[in-house]
């Protein structure tokens, strides 16, 4: 295990003053390279969010993990090949090309294991990612013994490193991210179709196998472009977190891709800018953590699907059900034992603490009972049964039926008569 860690006091990091450089970084004021890296990370994040959306919708998010780990042997082999041919092993396009080759190979292995054997996809993914990565580690140790391997810096691809990035590399990443983004935008329709209804897609003339292949190629492209920035272990975060976060905000696939792209883009932009402000703030982890921050926000606060909204809705529903049952109990003179019901009734001024109805309570209870009866009649009436069947039992009858319909129902209920 590791020996000799010297950590800066943890407190100093927490209490550090806000960095004046941050504004500079966010407004592209930190020089040409930092600006390019930031732009590249933004494009990468948007492309990853977009491509990841369709992976997420197909419930295959973790396939990207196999892809990203399978890039390592390719990077190493490309390096060794380029050195053997007498070139500079660190030539980024060459390394990325090599990584794409083994990533593709890894994908084929996953597909073959799932199709040809009875292993499930998760086992296939795990097997491919660990074996390819393990083989990559073997190659890494070989490279370290090569004369040219000492300063290879291939470890930078594990966790990403933008520190020593050269201008052509930054341009490559920016252009790659932009191209992938454009492809996602163009291919939105077939991707959605295949994700939701492969059978229909097939019937209308799309080749689902081919579209899946293109999607995987895009995922591979994002992974490969992202290697240098976020590193191969964390690049899957860019493909997974934005769509998962976006899903909390919308139920529409088109919006999902847009929101995921935006979340990915903001993560890349803010993450790269923040990491440019100080040493010791590596780009990859910061981007991932910014993305997670947005996920956490969506998870908690999104209207509709967010945890808080769901909890509030649950409470409201619970309250409405207790109220209705309580009022019916008051109307029929049954005692109320449920503590929550009683509390809700007393708080609304409809009952006293001992469960006896107040005047207002008796009035509301009588109305609740009458409305119950009205629903009964509605259910047995041929013209209203359709509406009554969709009734949730809680909304007020006046909000569902028109006054005319209610009058029609009331005509069938025996009217109160004078006591004789």
């Amino acid at each position, binding site marked *: 295990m*590791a020996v000799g*860690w010297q950590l800066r006091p943890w407190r100093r990091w927490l209490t550090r003053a806000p960095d004046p450089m941050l504004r500079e970084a966010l407004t592209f004021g930190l020089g040409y390279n930092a600006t390019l890296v930031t732009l590249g990370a933004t494009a990468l994040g948007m492309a990853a969010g977009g491509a990841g959306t369709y992976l997420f919708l197909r419930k295959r998010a973790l396939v990207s993990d196999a892809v990203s780990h399978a890039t390592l042997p390719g990077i190493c082999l490309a390096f060794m090949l380029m050195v053997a041919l007498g070139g500079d092993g660190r030539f980024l396009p060459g390394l990325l090309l090599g990584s794409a080759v083994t990533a593709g190979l890894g994908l084929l292995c996953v597909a073959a294991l799932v199709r040809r054997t009875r292993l499930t996809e998760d086992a296939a993914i*795990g*097997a491919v990612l660990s074996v390819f990565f393990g083989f990559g*580690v073997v190659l890494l140790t070989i490279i370290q013994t090569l004369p040219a391997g000492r300063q290879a810096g291939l470890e930078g691809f*594990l966790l990403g490193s933008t520190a020593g990035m050269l201008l052509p590399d930054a341009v490559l990443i920016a252009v790659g991210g932009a191209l992938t983004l454009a492809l996602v935008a163009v291919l939105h329709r077939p991707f959605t179709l295949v994700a939701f209804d492969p059978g229909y897609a097939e019937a209308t003339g799309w080749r689902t196998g081919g579209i899946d292949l293109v999607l995987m190629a895009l995922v591979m492209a994002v992974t490969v472009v992202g290697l240098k920035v976020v590193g191969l*272990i964390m690049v899957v975060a860019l493909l997974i*977190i934005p769509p998962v976060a976006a899903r909390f905000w919308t139920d529409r696939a088109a919006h999902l891709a847009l929101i995921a792209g935006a979340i990915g883009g903001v993560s890349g932009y803010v993450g790269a800018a923040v990491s440019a402000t100080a040493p010791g*703030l*590596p780009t990859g982890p910061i981007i991932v953590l910014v993305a997670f921050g947005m996920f956490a926000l969506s998870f908690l606060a999104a209207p509709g699907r967010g945890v808080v909204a769901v909890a509030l809705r649950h409470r409201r529903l619970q309250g409405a059900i207790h109220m209705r049952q309580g009022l019916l109990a008051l109307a029929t003179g049954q005692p109320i034992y449920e503590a929550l019901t009683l509390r809700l009734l007393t708080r609304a001024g409809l009952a006293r603490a001992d469960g006896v109805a107040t005047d207002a309570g008796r009035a509301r209870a009588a109305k609740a009972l009458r409305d119950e009866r009205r629903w009964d009649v509605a259910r047995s009436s041929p013209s209203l049964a359709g509406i009554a069947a969709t009734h949730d039992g809680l909304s007020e009858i006046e909000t569902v039926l028109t006054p005319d319909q209610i009058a029609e129902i009331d005509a069938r209920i025996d009217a109160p008569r004078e006591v004789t």
Partner: protein
Amino acid sequence: MSADFVALSLPPLVIGVLAAIACALPGNFLVLRRQALIGDAISHVVLPGIVVGFLLAGTVSTWPMLLGAAAASLVAVAMIEGIRRLGKVEPGAAMGVTFTTLFAAGVLLLEQSDTSSVHLDVEHALYGNLESLIWIDAVGWQSLVDPVALAGLPPELGRIAMATLGIVIFMAVLWRPLAVSTFDEGFARSVGLPTGVIGVALVVVSALAAVAAFDAVGSIIVIAMFICPPAAARLVTHRLGAQVGWSLVFAVIAAVAGYVLAGHGPLWLGFANSVSAAGMIATVSGVILALAAVFGPARHRAGQAT
């Protein structure tokens, strides 16, 4: 020669084999329950765990880091379940969100430390340092009965041995409930088995295996051994008992062959240096899986054309 073997090769070999067994055993059930990637997620979050363990303890010692790793894997499992249930997110995506985030946090914490030996440590967490677990005090086979020399065994050996023993006992005791709840959860519940508790226990044991094995051999082996030997065994037999047996055989073969190939293979090919044993063990386990996928007698899905 024998003195060299006992001192240099025997401890890593034994540790590698024990780690492989510790991971392959629970791995069988993870693969059958389609939770194979839990092992992947756990082994990623070990990194933040050891960093936090170190920050809290303030000293470089093994136990706080191991406790931190164990705690982190439990936090990860809780986070995955929380995101999955509360957010209604599919399990794969919930895992992806969780382990990348925790891993990123771990890397950031590490980078906030003085940078001299930091990168090396991330790599250690990934590849382990199996080759360096040597037994300096050994002078030959007779050292195995010499209490003084035995006291100088690498401490990792004792820890992984204890963890492996614990896992074997767990599997032996809970074999039937595990098997029943894995294959037919509805039936298991109807005969009164607490399936939820069993599921959690399996994940906790997997986390224990991952942390103990990580201590000795790094994360790569952990993921490979969780998945490859059980997956290969599943393609060889239809019976659960036989599957577990085969998975152990495959795990041991991978560990031994991987270690030997890493240490001596390059020398046979004329290279001067050995390569990463952890990486080679993972590679060999992959080769075994590939062979099983092509030749395994039980490789086809029920009803699939041969």
